[in-house]
């Protein structure tokens, strides 16, 4: 190479500056409020110790119990949403009219929003709603059917709003797996169950972890349905309610920030655990070669 060529620099690419507006927005709307929250969580209203808000949260049963209440809702909701998604998405993995119909039907709850779903659920599952009346009318269950204003109401709402999300993610992962892999397994003697167990499932684990992580985060942050469909004073007093009360009923922003940070940290721990689990599995292209 001649020295002349070495001196020739490629023209500077100024297109990188196009990210500037996005970076500014992130700084203003996300990073600054986050740091602000961290800082005020260490500035308790009365006590001189900066750790007071955290110590308070973890020593006061009415506060730290909200962590368990939230987990008791978020973990089953995640397991149901992802667990039911897998067989349904597997059955609908081919692009058929049935797949398009189910997909369209499931997009609706996503677009409705939690408050509208909660309202619908109150009239459908409420004590004098259609669902209990049908159960009793058919003499299937004669005791009082209570599916609202308790744990079950919130769990059902988390499934209704979370399942379509988990299903659509799972469907896209399943239909991304080359179907000739299962055919190949079939010609080698694998029954349909073994084709699923040995081929589809292991290839699906990374995608399912992602779907589960997103479902979990979504469920863990439950707020409107915990109030509207749950028992926000007791069994469904989730952590976001605790943060809301601290901020807007006690006007203790420091405590509210501390609760929010505990909440984020708990989510982070569980999501990190899921991704550690995922590392034990193959993750990479899900096709069987060139083609």
């Amino acid at each position, binding site marked *: 190479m001649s020295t002349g060529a070495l001196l020739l620099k490629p023209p500077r690419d100024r297109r990188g500056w196009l990210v500037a507006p996005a970076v500014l927005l992130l700084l203003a709307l996300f990073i600054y409020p986050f740091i602000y929250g961290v800082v005020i969580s260490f500035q308790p209203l009365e006590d001189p110790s900066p750790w007071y808000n955290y110590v308070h949260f973890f020593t006061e049963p009415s506060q730290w119990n909200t962590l368990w209440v939230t987990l008791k809702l978020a973990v089953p909701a995640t397991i149901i949403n992802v667990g039911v998604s897998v067989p349904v998405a597997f059955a609908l993995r081919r692009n058929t009219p049935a797949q398009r119909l189910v997909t369209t039907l499931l997009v609706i709850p996503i677009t409705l929003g939690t408050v509208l779903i909660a309202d619908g659920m109150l009239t459908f599952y409420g004590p004098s709603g259609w669902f209990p009346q049908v159960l009793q009318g058919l003499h299937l269950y004669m005791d009082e059917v209570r599916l609202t204003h308790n744990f079950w109401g919130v769990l059902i709402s988390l499934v209704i709003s979370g399942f379509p999300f988990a299903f659509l993610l799972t469907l896209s992962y399943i239909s991304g797996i080359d179907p000739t892999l299962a055919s190949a397994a079939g010609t080698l003697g694998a029954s349909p169950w073994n084709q699923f167990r040995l081929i589809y499932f292991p290839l699906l684990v990374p995608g399912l972890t992602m779907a589960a992580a997103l479902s979990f985060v979504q469920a863990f942050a439950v707020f409107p349905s915990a109030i509207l469909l749950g028992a926000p004073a007791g069994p469904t007093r989730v952590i976001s309610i605790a943060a809301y009360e601290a901020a807007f009923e006690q006007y203790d922003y420091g405590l509210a920030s501390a609760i929010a940070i505990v909440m984020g940290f708990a989510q982070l721990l569980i999501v990190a655990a899921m991704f550690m689990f995922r590392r034990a599995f193959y993750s990479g292209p899900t096709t069987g*070669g060139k*083609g």
Partner: protein
Amino acid sequence: MNQNFQQLRLESVGRSFETASGGAVAALRDLDLTIRRGEFIALLGPSGCGKSTALNCLAGLTTLTSGAIWLDETRIDVLPSERRGFGMVFQNYALFPHMSVLDNVGFGLRMRRVPKAEIGRRAREALQLVQLIGHENKLPGQLSGGQQQRVAIARAIVIEPPVILMDEPLSNLDAKLRIEMRAEIRRIHTQLERATIYVTHDQDEALSMADRIVVMRAGTVQQVGTPREVYGRPRNLHVARFMGYRNVLPFRVVGQEGERIAMDREGVRLAGQALAVGEGQREVSVAMRPDDFELAGDAGDNTFEATVRTVEFGGRDSLLFVSSVLGDLYVRLPGALEPGDRVRLRIPAERALAYAEAA
């Protein structure tokens, strides 16, 4: 499945698909074929001719809409693919990306509940056969295309299937490797002494590998024959064109006696071979391969003059596009010719094939 089978029989196998508008399209019609043990059969045809459908019907990946498939006296088209026990090599290899090479090859044995130690031993033997020892613990993604191809072959043969099905297994490889793998697949076939059914759209591949070639078009069989028969005596114009008879010209019949036919076009007298011409046929189409032309010394029957238009240099010889009184032709000739050169060409009588069909 029976490894010591004598023959695999396809009886008027057909498969049609429903179209979006509710009609039915036949992808495969009335395929009759008897394959003996030890035979290497190539299903040859352009894309969409039904050759892959035929293979999928054999593998059990598609159900038949008519006909039956028999392995000796066992009817197998009613069995699901996992109970047929045929080995299949897919066009995209379909290797399990999350399993090591050894686990991929051992998969079929694992499904047959073979003891673990034996799986390892037999999978290594199969890898030895395809010359891949040393790669057992790699994932398929770490192998080159040719190596992946060989893993796919090893995986299909390790279960000792009576029939091995191959769906364009070489189409994703580069030209040099493709030629090497032809010999490799043929060697493995000879060593195993089972039946191989090989789908391809490449006539050179079919000619060089197969014992018998089944030429297909639009779901129907056009010709079944040895490579020599299909190459030398294509049954119709379609097969002829597919086998490289690029020049098809109409001629007037002057006289015919059995397979010998005398023809005329624009004052050029041509003696040829009538392959599918009935008595009394007035007009015929004559198919000629570019390679069969030669430079003629003197004028006479089967010779004509031509002007070179373009030259496509090919090393030992060149593919020329020439124009003549007969029309425009593709001709392959040795030597250095330039556009504008005048040449006198001759086509041997046995290499000018006459068909009654219109061109």
